[in-house]
């Protein structure tokens, strides 16, 4: 189980491969579910030029570790990885990677969905978008 905050652009698929190569579950996993969130060049009908992602150092990591531990309790999974970007980013930059490994697909699908939903509702991150003429904080979505 690993949680990582990156303050520079990262390649999520390389992170997944690197973690998998060094993990202790070789030969045991039959399923890998990966979710990658990417920055769009539009939001709420406006062109977005850039985005600043802020976090609460310490609490963010704590909550990502907490939800990872919860997923490992709720489902029979082998391992999980969460990588999340902070700082100034541009459209097409990856924002988040959530990956889960399990013996069978149902657990990997369900646990990765859980991690993403809990991350979005509980992990302290905030997005501020830069549009052509202004900046604005992203409001909570339902």
């Amino acid at each position, binding site marked *: 189980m690993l949680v990582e905050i990156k303050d520079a652009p990262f390649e999520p698929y390389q992170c997944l491969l690197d973690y998998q190569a060094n993990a202790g579950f070789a030969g045991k996993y039959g399923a890998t579910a990966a979710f990658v*969130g990417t920055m769009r060049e539009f939001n709420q009908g406006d062109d977005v030029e850039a985005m600043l*992602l*802020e*976090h*609460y150092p*310490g*609490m*963010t990591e*704590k909550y990502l570790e907490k939800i990872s531990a919860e997923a490992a309790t709720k489902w029979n999974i082998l391992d999980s990885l969460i990588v*999340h970007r902070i700082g100034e980013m541009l459209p097409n930059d990856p*924002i*988040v990677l959530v990956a889960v490994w399990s013996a069978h697909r149902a657990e990997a699908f369900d646990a990765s969905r859980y991690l*993403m939903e809990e*991350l*979005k*509702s*509980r*992990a*302290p*991150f*905030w*997005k*501020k978008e830069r549009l052509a003429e202004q900046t604005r*904080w*992203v*409001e*909570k*979505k339902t």
Partner: protein
Amino acid sequence: MTTKAVITVKFFASLREHVGQTEAEVAESGMKSVADVWSQATNNMALPENTLMAVNMEYVDSSCTVKAGDEVAFFPPVTGG
């Protein structure tokens, strides 16, 4: 060895801009709850309705009690992922 009887207060994102400060220290004396800490640190600004609160990096509500050495944080709904 004495430690200062203070509570550290942090503000994040739009709420930091709203209150105009990133971090503050308030004297622990007279501080019973997170709501008291907010009032003291912000000079009695109204607490925005959807504000989230944490004590020592755990979510709490505004009635949560506080003690010297605590870190109290206020921030808007989270928007990561």
